[in-house]
């Protein structure tokens, strides 16, 4: 048992990020949409969680199937975790959704499937060939009326998925997560609750789509797409097996199904270099009372409060020595596979905990090029210990710079801990199901109509925060979930719809 340090309440006054003295505000008179911050009833409790007990896997690539921290659905618990068991791709599996459900989440975890495939894509007179890692992705999801809520049997997705019932563009190996509702259209349809009755999920992955494309009667939606047969000893594409979970979140007792507020418990993993060459100013023992982490947690709480979220318990854990030796001078994000450094680091999230796990590392990628990255959108909420269970945040700036006095406005330009908090909140947004408002190319947008978008025409190059802080058609730059960060523009705003999506997560209690 470790000490718990009560924290003072994050002050509502912090809900606005500091304008930068000396810099002309680049966006007024245009006003970005934003939701008001929730006033939290109590302060987060900061806890020293000690050292993470995860054993050293050596050279093994960890891909264990994990359970949810939620209670299993039973006679006494209408909502929670439903284990649909091990299933073969292509199987259509029913699952019950009780009345009074705010959201459903489907999680596939690989048991046995081809790791990668050689794919051919014919378009006109040209054929391209490439090797792709397999991705765990539901093939189809249908509601009790048989309506097709989601299908991955398609080539290409919408640039703007706000009118679709379910938006998904987060393909990842080994562990895949799908959540409903997450679009403007679905938020409206499910405003008073997700349709009750027997839903069905068709289990899938890229291998299954390869098998379909190679079948005697391939779906028209996969025209031009084919795969080489798997090599000897590799699981046939039509025989991939996944453990499938469904998580249901209860609706609020009155009003809108999605609760207006919620509480989130967070675990910060400190992945520092080994002594005597530590690179971070804190360890798990000092973090609950150290100025750098106190500031970070305060700023993080302020940013999340705009999503209607309050922090509950914030636990700091030291990574075990083997992990500090392996990751403590930086983590590469170059290998995005399940066995890459980043994905393997996420397996250190402690199974059985209902926490959002954030891994603070001294730097990410060559040249500290990456500020943060999360496992998948959304993450496999409440299922810790998988290759997608959490997010990684650069702590290069933790404790650096000059910060305002306690209770002062968030200053991402000068206060390093505030910048770390901003990136932690951005990655948390992804984990809770939020996409970027606009991608760097100005051609893809999140599935929410209430968030401003920014088009290619707003900039001569990649759409920058500053170029997207000018009007309703060139907007979004100040939002927390914009693709890029600019301390002179980024304000960490969130809209009401973004808050709704975040609060559908089973992590939120």
């Amino acid at each position, binding site marked *: 048992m470790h000490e718990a340090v009560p924290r003072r309440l994050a002050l509502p006054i912090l809900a606005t990020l500091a304008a930068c003295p000396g810099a002309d505000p680049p966006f007024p008179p245009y006003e970005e949409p934003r939701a008001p911050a929730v006033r939290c009833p109590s302060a987060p409790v900061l806890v020293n969680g000690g050292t993470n007990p995860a054993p050293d896997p050596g050279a093994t690539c960890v891909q264990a199937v994990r359970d949810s921290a939620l209670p299993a659905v039973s006679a006494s618990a209408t909502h929670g975790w439903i284990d649909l068991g091990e299933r073969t791709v292509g199987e259509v599996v029913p699952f019950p959704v009780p009345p009074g459900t705010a959201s459903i989440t489907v999680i596939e975890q690989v048991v046995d499937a081809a790791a990668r495939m050689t794919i051919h894509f014919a378009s006109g007179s040209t054929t391209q060939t*490439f090797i792709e890692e397999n991705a765990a992705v539901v093939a189809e999801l249908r509601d009790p009326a048989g309506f097709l809520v989601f299908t991955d049997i398609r080539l290409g997705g919408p640039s703007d998925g706000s009118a679709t019932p379910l938006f998904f563009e987060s393909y990842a190996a080994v562990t895949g997560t799908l959540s409903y509702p997450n679009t403007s259209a679905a938020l409206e349809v499910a405003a008073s609750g997700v349709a009750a009755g027997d839903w069905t999920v068709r289990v899938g992955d890229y291998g299954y789509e390869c098998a379909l494309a190679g079948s005697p009667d391939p779906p028209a939606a996969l025209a031009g797409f084919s795969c080489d047969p798997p090599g000897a000893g590799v699981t046939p594409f039509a025989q991939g097996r996944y453990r499938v979970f469904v998580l249901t979140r209860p609706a609020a007792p009155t009003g809108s199904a999605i609760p207006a507020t919620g509480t989130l418990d967070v675990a910060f993993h400190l992945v520092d270099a080994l002594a005597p060459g530590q690179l971070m100013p804190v360890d798990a023992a000092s973090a609950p009372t150290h100025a750098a982490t106190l500031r970070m947690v305060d700023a993080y709480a302020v940013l999340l409060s705009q999503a209607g979220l309050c922090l509950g318990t914030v636990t700091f854990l030291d990574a075990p020595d083997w992990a500090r030796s392996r990751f403590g001078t930086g983590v590469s994000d170059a290998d995005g596979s399940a066995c890459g450094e980043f994905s393997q680091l996420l397996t250190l999230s402690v199974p059985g905990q209902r926490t959002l796990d954030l891994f603070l590392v001294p730097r990410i990628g*060559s*040249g500290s090029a*990456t500020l943060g990255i999360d496992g998948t959108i959304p993450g496999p909420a409440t299922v810790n210990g998988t290759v997608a269970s959490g997010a990684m945040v*650069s702590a290069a700036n933790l404790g650096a*710079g000059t910060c305002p006095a306690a209770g002062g406005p968030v200053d991402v330009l000068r206060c390093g801990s505030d910048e770390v908090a901003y990136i932690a909140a951005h990655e948390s947004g992804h984990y809770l199901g939020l996409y970027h408002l606009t991608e760097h190319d100005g051609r893809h947008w999140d599935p929410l109509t209430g968030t401003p978008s920014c088009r290619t025409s707003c900039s001569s190059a990649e759409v*920058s925060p500053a170029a997207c802080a000018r009007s309703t058609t060139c907007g979004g730059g100040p939002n927390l979930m914009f*693709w890029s960060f600019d301390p002179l523009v980024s304000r960490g705003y969130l809209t009401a719809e973004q808050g709704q999506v975040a609060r559908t997560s089973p992590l939120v209690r």
Partner: protein
Amino acid sequence: MTALSLLVCAALAAPRPPAPEPAEPPPPATAAEQAERIQAALGRIHGSPAPATWRSLGPGADEALLKVAADGAALPRRRALALTGLSHLGGARAEAALTSFAAQEGLPFAVRAAALEGAGRLLAPAALHRALSPVLAARRPADRTVAAEVLAERAPAESCGAIRARAALRGERPGLARALSRCGASGR
């Protein structure tokens, strides 16, 4: 594929060929636009800006990046990424800056590490060995680790002997394990 790459090819459903690197955008038309684009490059949240992004920043970008890197009041990660940008722009000024930063004790770790890696990107093996081999004896163990890994990767013929000699010292081997592995793989 992780969230990083999905955001680059966000329109894909079933697997598709990887998108080619986008064409280099035109240089900025005004100083204000250049400043915006430098900010955007330094503020990318997921993944490194493409080399073409740095190159497209236009004349004078090296000076602007150098100013950020040298600003002791700026946050370390921002300074580090400015050095990375400089290493992609190249040129005598970038080489001199990266060599100078790589040699400085007392810099924040992210800044010095970026200088070491940037030098590895820019300098020829012999020059890299001259510039970075003294860092094998740096005060901070993590600096020694990064220097050794850059040298083992980019100048193995010149540097693996020095890395092995350093690893023979008490307590040094764990931090140099990856560099030693690279030296082994290169046969040096």
